[in-house]
């Protein structure tokens, strides 16, 4: 029971990640119309459209106007992730997260050292670069090579060579750069970092409870977001790089973290 409680958010995240994959799979194979399509674009109950806004931007950059369905879908997704914290996509939906979490877990378990570092800003450069590249090449640049879409297709339509790409990400994270793909390279994650920059839903921090044990820093895939000075001053994790994955909530022995709203700081002090 205590194990369940200690992993409640992990279980919830895996449930949403796998559940979304399962719903897509059921639609593709059994025509169950709850969630049809894939993470690039889909429909809920065959009516409400959802589209990856970053993919939409790239397609627009190629000079192609998008149908209203795709634009509306992108707007809905943008609003949703603005409200829930931008990179909540990374922590709760993206299937690659399960691969990089596995790498992170193995790394901690076997105390593997990283060989290199890649500047965290690289992903923003890649994100921005995809726009002119889409315009020059005439096709959506990141969508063409996206391991997220690739893994998704692998799961839904059966395994192929794309698994090599996923294995590459695993090895990168495992041996070469800590959290290398999600933290330093993935342009979609960078995009959602921007989307979530001012998100209302944040991980709140109660300075009074914290004894600086550092368990949260060790478990956090984006450890730089745990900035004690800033968290103490503002009462929450402010960085848009935070995945709202709640690993810090689970691991904290003194319950110093809990979900809160950005403008909701006073109530936190009454906890």
């Amino acid at each position, binding site marked *: 029971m205590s194990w369940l409680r200690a992993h409640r958010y992990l279980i919830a995240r895996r449930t949403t990640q796998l559940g979304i994959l399962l719903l897509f799979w059921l*639609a*593709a194979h059994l*025509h169950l119309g709850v969630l*049809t*399509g*894939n993470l*690039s*674009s*889909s*429909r809920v109950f065959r009516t409400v*459209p959802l*589209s*990856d806004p970053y*993919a*939409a931007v790239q*397609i627009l950059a*190629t*000079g*192609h*106007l*998008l*149908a209203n*369905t*795709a634009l509306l*879908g992108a707007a809905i997704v943008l609003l949703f992730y603005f409200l829930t914290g931008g990179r909540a996509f990374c922590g709760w939906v993206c299937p690659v997260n399960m691969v990089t979490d596995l790498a992170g877990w193995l790394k901690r378990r076997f105390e593997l050292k990283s060989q290199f570092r890649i500047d965290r*800003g690289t992903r923003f*450069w*890649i994100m*921005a*670069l995809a726009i*002119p*590249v889409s315009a*020059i*090449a*005439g*096709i*959506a*640049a990141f*969508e*063409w*090579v996206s391991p997220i*879409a*690739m893994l998704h*297709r*692998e799961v*839904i*339509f*059966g395994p*192929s*060579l*794309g698994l*090599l*790409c996923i294995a590459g990400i695993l090895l990168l994270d495992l041996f070469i750069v800590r959290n290398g793909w999600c933290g330093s390279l993935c342009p979609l994650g960078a995009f959602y970092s921007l989307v979530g920059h001012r998100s209302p839903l944040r991980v709140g921090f109660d300075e009074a409870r914290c004894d600086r044990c550092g368990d949260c820093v060790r478990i956090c895939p984006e450890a730089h977001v745990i900035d004690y000075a800033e968290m103490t001053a503002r009462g929450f994790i402010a960085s848009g790089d935070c995945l709202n994955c709640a690993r810090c909530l689970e691991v904290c022995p003194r319950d110093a973290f809990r979900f809160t709203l950005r403008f909701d700081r006073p109530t936190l002090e009454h906890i």
Partner: protein
Amino acid sequence: MVSRREFLTGGFHGRKVALAATGGLVWSYALGESATTAAAPRPPGAQAEPDYLASCIKCGQCVEACPFDTLRLATAGEENALGVPYFEPRKVACYMCEDTPCINACPTDALIKGTSIEDARMGLAVLTDHETCLAYQGLRCEVCYRACPLMGQAIGLEFRPQERTGRHAYFIPVVNSDHCTGCGMCEHSCVLEEAAIKVLPHDVAQGKLGENYRFGWLEPAEISRDFVAPEAAPDLPQWRGGLEKVLEEMENLTGIEEP
């Protein structure tokens, strides 16, 4: 003001800009290379190829909507552009649904809304191999002709005298690009081990007349004031006229009257 030295050696993100520019060029090149594979058939209503590749978001909703499981998304390692919908008629052809569920499902207009299925151009059927096509051996096959959902329009039969026996006709399947939707029923049903008729991309399959080229017998008046078109020769055999004419011609050739 940033000096040139500062710009190139690290000030003002100079190195990063240089790296990004190089990366961008390599990236563009790689994309351009990978997007050159001509592939067919595409789903009904697909935009012309470069536009189709650009506007498709690779969501697979057309694939899901297809009631016959015809469409699929290309996976990594295939010849087709990664993640873009296509189909293999030899496995499953397009059944040309009147209500085009695949087109309706497309969120981006990569498949153009409102395209009627008869106007779809998924590709163009081409009888690629005369050396194995049974009809060209003088055998009665016509399977592709009969499998064609637009029989008599998209694929017709052309009758030609069969010199080997001197008393039979070839029944040659002929595709008409004005009607062929590229559904692939012909390729799917071809009785050979490897189909002799295949659906190809239009740009692979079709030629194009030069802009200034004119067929004199079609528009004689427009060619030149000095040129006088001859009257159509009255006695040339017209093989397209149907079986009766073929038989008539055969009688003329062989002197044997068919019963």
